[in-house]
C-alpha cells in the first residue's frame, strides 16, 4: 500500500534496537498515517513490545530514525514523546495500586497546566463509564479489566495524536476485550491514530485498517486488512515458510 505524498504521522526507518548486547529489531521500516489504525502482529519474541518501547523512548534506539509529526523523535525521552502526542500504554495493566483512580489519571497529566488537568481527566473517564464510577477507589482495588481500561484512560489524558497499545487484551475475558477494543473505533472516529499490538488475530484484523507482521525482528508482511487471504499469509509468515517472499508484497 502506498502512503500519501505528505509525510506520515509516524515514520520509522531502519530502526534497530534491543536490550544491551541482544539486538531484537534488525532494521524496521514502518509508517502510521494520521488517523489510521495499524495493528502490529507477530509471534512471541518477535520484538513487538521492544518496538513500541524504542518508539516511546523507553529503550534506546541503536540506529535508524523515528520521525513523529514531522519532528525527529529518535531517542527522545518518554516524557518528550508523550508531550508530542506519541503515547505508549505499556502491557500488563500496570496501574499504580496505592493511589486512587483519579490520581492515576492526574499523574498522566502531570505536565499539563493545573487548570486543565481535571477537565482532561473527565474527558478520559468519559470513554470508560465503568471506571468513572470507581474514581475514588485505589488502583489496586480494580479488576484486571478495569485496570486495563484505566491504563488506556491514562494514555487518553494526553489527547494523543498516536496511541500505542501493547496487548490491551492480555488476560481479559472476551467481553472485556471487545469493550477495551471498542474504544479504538471511537478514537478513529475522532481522528486519533492507533498502533495496536495484539495477540488475538481476528480482533486485531477487525479493529485495524492495516497490519504489519513482525517475525524475529524483521517486518515480513504489510497489508491492508481488506485483503482476503490475510490469515493464511500470516500463518505462513509465522511458521517460516516463504517468509521473506511475502515481505515484498
Amino acid at each position, binding site marked *: 500500500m502506498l502512503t500519501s505524498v505528505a509525510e506520515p504521522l509516524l515514520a520509522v526507518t531502519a530502526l534497530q534496537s534491543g536490550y544491551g548486547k541482544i539486538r531484537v529489531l534488525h532494521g524496521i521500516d514502518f509508517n502510521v498515517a494520521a488517523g489510521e489504525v495499524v495493528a502490529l502482529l507477530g509471534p512471541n519474541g518477535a520484538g513487538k513490545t521492544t518496538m513500541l518501547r524504542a518508539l516511546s523512548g523507553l529503550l534506546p534506539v541503536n540506529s535508524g530514525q523515528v520521525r513523529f509529526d514531522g519532528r525527529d523523535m529518535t531517542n527522545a525521552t518518554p516524557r518528550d514523546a508523550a508531550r508530542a502526542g506519541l503515547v505508549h500504554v505499556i502491557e500488563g495493566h500496570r496501574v499504580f495500586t496505592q493511589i486512587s483512580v483519579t490520581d492515576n489519571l492526574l499523574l498522566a497529566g502531570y505536565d499539563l497546566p493545573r487548570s486543565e488537568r481535571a477537565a482532561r481527566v473527565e474527558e478520559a473517564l468519559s470513554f470508560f463509564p465503568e471506571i468513572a464510577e470507581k474514581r475514588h477507589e485505589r488502583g489496586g482495588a480494580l479488576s484486571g479489566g478495569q485496570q486495563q481500561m484505566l491504563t488506556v484512560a491514562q494514555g487518553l489524558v494526553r489527547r494523543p495524536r498516536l496511541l500505542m497499545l501493547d496487548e490491551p487484551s492480555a488476560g481479559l475475558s472476551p467481553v472485556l476485550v471487545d469493550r477495551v477494543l471498542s474504544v479504538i473505533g471511537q478514537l478513529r472516529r475522532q481522528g486519533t491514530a492507533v498502533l495496536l499490538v495484539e495477540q*488475538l488475530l481476528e480482533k486485531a484484523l477487525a479493529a485495524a485498517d492495516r497490519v504489519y507482521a513482525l517475525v524475529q525482528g524483521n517486518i515480513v508482511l504489510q497489508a491492508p486488512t481488506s485483503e482476503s487471504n490475510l490469515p493464511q499469509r*500470516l500463518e505462513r509468515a509465522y*511458521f517460516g515458510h516463504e517468509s521473506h517472499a511475502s515481505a515484498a508484497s
Partner: protein
Amino acid sequence: MTAVTATPAHQEAGAIRAALPQLAPFLGILALAVMLPFISNDYWALIGTRAAIYWVLVSGLNLVVGFAGHLAIGYVALLTLGAYTTSVLVAGNVLPPVPVFAALPVAAIVGAMFGVIVGLPALRLRTFYFAMSTLGFATIVTQIALAWQSVTGGGIGISGPEFPAPFNTAWGFYFLCTAFAAFTTWMSANIARSRFGRALIAVRDAEVAAEATGISKPKMLIAIFLFAGALAAIAGGLFASLQTYITPDAFTFDLSVLFFIAILIGGRGSILGPMLGTIILTILPEIAAPLAAWSTFLYAVLLLVIVLVMPGGIAALLDFRNRRPLASNRAILPRPAALADIVRQRAGGSALALRDISLSFGNVRAIDRLDLDVAPGQIHGLIGPNGSGKTSTLNVISGYYAARAGTMTLGDAALPPGMPALRAARGIARTFQTPRVIGEASVLQNVMIGGTIEGRASFVEAMLSLPRNRQDERMLAAKARGLLGVVGLEPLADVRADRLQHSELRFIEIARALMLDPDFLLLDEPAAGLSSDEIERLAGLIKAISGRGTGVLLVEHHADLIFDICHQVTVLNLGRTLAAGTPAEIRVHKEVVSAYLGG
C-alpha cells in the same frame, strides 16, 4: 572423557610457561621486599611490616570481597579479635601464659570461627544488608574491647605479644611478616585458581547458573569465611606485636576502609591488583605527610573514582591481553563430530518423566497438571505462546521452583522438588533464556565451571595445591577446551566472556552444560538472537548431542528449528498440554496453529 588428555609432562611444562607472565609481578614484588633492608632504614622496615601485615588480612578478605563479591566492610573487627586473643594469651592475664607461636594458631582458630559467624548473614543477605551487618559487628567488637576491662585492659590497653629472636628486631620481624604474606599469597592464589575460586566468582556473578552446575553456595562461603577469618586474626596477632601496646583506639574504622578499598582499587577477581592496592594505600600517607589526616578522605575519593570511572580497578589496567581487538568477522563453527571424543555414548538409559505437575504463583496457574516424558537420545520440543509455562516447566525440572503437586522421576528414582544444586549430580544440565555467563572470567573458565562437581580435591588440597587438585585442573581444562572445539569457540578460549557477542554466549552455555556429560540437557530458547546460519549450526549440534544418547528438552520460539530437529513436540497453552506428538502431527494441528496465531 579420557581421550582428550595429552601427555602430562608436556602439559606441565606448558602450564609453567603459560603461568610465567602472571607469576613475574609477584616474584618482582618479593624480590623488592627482600631487597628493602639493603636500600632503606628502620622507618621503612615499619612501613614494610605494616604493608605485609595488612596484606595477610587482605589476601583472605580478597576472596570474600573480590571473588565472592560480599561487601564485608567491617573486617577490622577480626583484626581486633586476633590482636586481643594473641595478646591476652601471651600476657597470661586469663590463662597461664602461652608462647606467641602457640597463641597465633589459637587466634587463627578463634578468628576462623568468628569469620563464619560474621559471614553467615551473607548466605541470606546481599549487598547493603550484609555490609551493614559487618559494620555493626565492627562497632560492637570495639565496644566490648573497651568494656571487658579484666581481660582487655579496657581503654588502658594491653601489651602486644613479643616474638622471640631472631624476630625481635625491626628487620627480623619484617622478614617474619613478609614470609607470612608470601605464604598467604600463595594459598589464596591457589584457591583462586582452583575450581573453588571459579565457583566463588560463579556464585557472585551467575548464582542461578552456579546452582545448576551443582555448586553449593553455603559450603563455598563457609570455607572462605573460615580462611579469611583465620588470616585476619593472624594479621591481628602480628599487628599487636608491631604496635607493642594495643588499645581499642588502635583499631579505627579507617583501617577497615583501607582493607576494603585496597581490594576494590585492585580490582575484583584479582590477587595482584589488591596486593598493589594494599601497598599503595599503606605507603600513600607516608610519602605525602601533610595528607596523613586526609588519608581516609583520599581513600574514599579513590573508591568513588574507581566505582564511577574504572570498575575493573588496577587489575583491568594491567590486563593487556584482553585489550587486543577480536576479529570482528569471526564465525561460530561447531564441530559436533568431536563430541564423540569427550562425551560418552549412552545406550538406552532411563527417561525423565513428569506426572501431574502443577505450579502456581499466587492465583496464577503457571503449570496445570502437566505430563511430560523426555526419552534418552531424543529431542523433545516444548513450544507455546508467552506465559504458557515453558520456562516454568524447565525451572520445575531443574529445581528452581517446587511444584505444588505431581511427581518427577528419573528412571525409577524420584526427583525431589526444589533443590536446584542437586540436579547436576543427577545428570541434568541446562542453559538459560538470558545467558548467565561470568563476564569477568575467560571463556575457558566459564566452561570449566560446568565441571565443578567432577573435581575430587578438597578445599584444603586446593589451597595447598596438592597433586589431586592439579589433576582436577588438568582434567577440567582439557575437557573444557575439547568442548569449546565442539561448539566452535576454541579460538576465544582465553578471552574475557563479556567481550563476546550474544550468540557466542549461547554456545558457551551449551559447552558449560556439556561439561557434566549430562543424561538430560534442558535448553531454554537457545536460538533466540541467533542468525539463521547460526541456528542451522545449532541444530546440527543439538542433533549430535542427542545422538550420544542424551535426552534434550528444547524450549524454543523458532518453529522451523523445532519442526526440523525434534522427535517429539509438546505444545503448552495456559500451563496445560494443548497437543503432543511428532512434528508432522503438530504442524497440522488446528488448535496449535490458532494458538500460535492467537485466533
